[in-house]
């Protein structure tokens, strides 16, 4: 009797947790290592003036996690006779590291220390056959040539970055492109990346500067978002179906017990139980069945999730996704089950109000 409810809820918990965990993993793997909000210049020379004030302001306006500035520009990297288009990215290493996690991505060599040092992505290093200590020449469209030394090789996980980014000191990039003390972008991360658009709007309003553009990852990743939205809707539909079956399970269980209990309620009424108390018997029963069933269901659902993770994890390989136990989701499912159990008990409780003891006695 309680088992039916338990199974329905365990499916709800199992499906819900899996879908949510998968979704989170997907977002994290896509967005985990990039800025959530990017501020760029909208003037012709692509630089942002008085960025120091802006950085201070940003931290005051909104709860942001990291604010990092960058001086970046397109150039050509040349070694021997091979030349490739690159994006030179000048970063303050410590700050940018908090967004991109560069230090963990360096698989050979070390971060740049001197102004003449760069770190090169995996793909570019292969194309230009670069190794630690090798030298390359970077030519800007403005006609400046700079000689740089490779201090490390990185793998940031995305080949578009590994192929094009030449990461170096802020000053090196500024000098290369003649930016003076200016920067070309301010990059921001926030704690809840799904609120990035809200924070971005707030920043845009508060900074109130016609010379800048504020963009957030959501605008730039419409496709991913659409995918997530589709997933969210299908998971909502699945959960709605499960919810309906939970309610049906609970009410059918209760209606069976009502048939059994009708005679008893009738005779209790002959003995003077008040209608309200007779009705409460059903509500109480619904509550108890819902309580026990949903707790069983949560336990079962969680074990299923763990079993699933254990079964799909192959030794020595990273897990398919990172499991996240969302307590608010479990709490919500639990409350819904309880609530629907009580709701389902209301019908028999109401019917029991109408029941007259004579009906029961006459049946015999």
């Amino acid at each position, binding site marked *: 009797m309680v088992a039916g409810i338990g199974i329905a809820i365990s499916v709800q918990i199992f499906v819900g947790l899996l879908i949510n965990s998968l979704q989170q993993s997907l977002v994290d793997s896509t967005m985990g290592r990039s800025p959530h909000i990017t501020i760029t210049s909208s003037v012709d020379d692509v630089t942002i003036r008085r960025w120091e004030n802006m950085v201070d302001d940003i931290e005051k306006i909104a709860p942001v996690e990291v604010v990092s500035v960058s001086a970046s520009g397109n150039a050509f990297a040349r070694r021997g006779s091979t030349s490739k288009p690159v994006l030179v990215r000048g970063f303050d290493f410590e700050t940018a590291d908090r967004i991109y996690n560069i230090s963990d991505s360096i698989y050979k060599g070390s971060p740049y220390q001197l102004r003449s040092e760069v770190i090169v992505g995996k793909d570019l290093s292969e194309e230009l056959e670069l190794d630690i200590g090798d030298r390359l020449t970077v030519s800007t469209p403005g006609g400046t040539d700079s000689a740089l030394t490779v201090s490390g090789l990185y793998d940031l996980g995305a080949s578009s970055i590994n192929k094009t980014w030449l990461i170096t000191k802020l000053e090196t990039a500024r000098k290369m492109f003649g930016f003076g003390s200016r920067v070309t972008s301010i990059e921001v991360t926030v704690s809840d990346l799904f609120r990035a658009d809200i924070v971005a709007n707030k920043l845009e309003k508060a900074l109130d500067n016609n010379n800048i553009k504020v963009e957030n990852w959501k605008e730039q990743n419409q496709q991913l978002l659409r995918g997530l939205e589709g997933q969210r809707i299908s998971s909502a539909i699945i959960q709605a179906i499960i919810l309906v079956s939970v309610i049906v399970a609970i009410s059918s269980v209760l209606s069976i017990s009502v048939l059994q209990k009708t005679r008893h309620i009738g*005779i209790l009424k002959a003995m003077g139980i008040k209608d309200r108390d007779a009705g409460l018997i059903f509500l109480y029963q619904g509550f108890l069945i819902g309580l026990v069933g949903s707790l069983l269901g949560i336990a079962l659902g969680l074990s299923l999730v763990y079993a699933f993770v254990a079964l799909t994890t192959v030794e020595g390989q990273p897990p398919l996704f990172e499991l996240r136990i969302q307590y608010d989701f479990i709490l919500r499912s639990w409350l819904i089950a309880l609530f629907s159990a009580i709701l389902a008990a209301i019908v028999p409780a109401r019917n029991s109000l109408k029941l007259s003891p*004579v009906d029961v006695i006459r049946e*015999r």
Partner: protein
Amino acid sequence: MGSIIELRNVDKTYAGAIDAQALFGVDLSFEEGSCSSIMGESGSGKSTLLNIMGTLDVPTRGEVFINGQRTDTMGKNRLAELRNETIGFVFQYHYLLPEFTAIENALIPYLIKSGKVDKEILERAEDLFDMMGISNVKNNAAARMSGGQQQRTAIVRALINNPRILLADEPTGNLDSRITERVCKNFREINERFGTTFVVVTHNSEVAKHTDRVVKIQDGRIEADI
């Protein structure tokens, strides 16, 4: 002593595709502490009459008084209280709750009344079980007793709140003659010891012999009152 039950000009018509009138202008009253039986052919209206006296059913016309209070116009909650405290019922079938033991079943009306069980009521219950000769099975599950034991448990339950009235509808209908005799003697004993007013509907003239007064009913009318 005044009447504890009084019916004045009571009609009862069961509404349906064809309306069926079961009682016609019944005037009837029972003295406090009396012991009476109601007899009549099947379908003559005995159960209808008893249910109306017990406030389980309402008359179509006429007035019903229990203990001087008019009941046919009372609200449901007050009626429930009245039944709980003043009237005990015994039917042909015992209607015990199968999940509970005999003694738990017997205590239900007291639980409804006061919401708890105390030592006094337990003693009273044990007394009554003794009196009925079934104290050996009082801790049995209701379903694990003989028909006679179940019926006597139902009688204990009807008496637990020490009601002033006990209404019984064919209480011995399913019992053999030996147990029937015994139950009749119990009724008498309770009637004398507690002054409980008894009204027993029966087909069995042996049962009627144990009562002081026999009301005969035919086609919904009182035919004789001896």
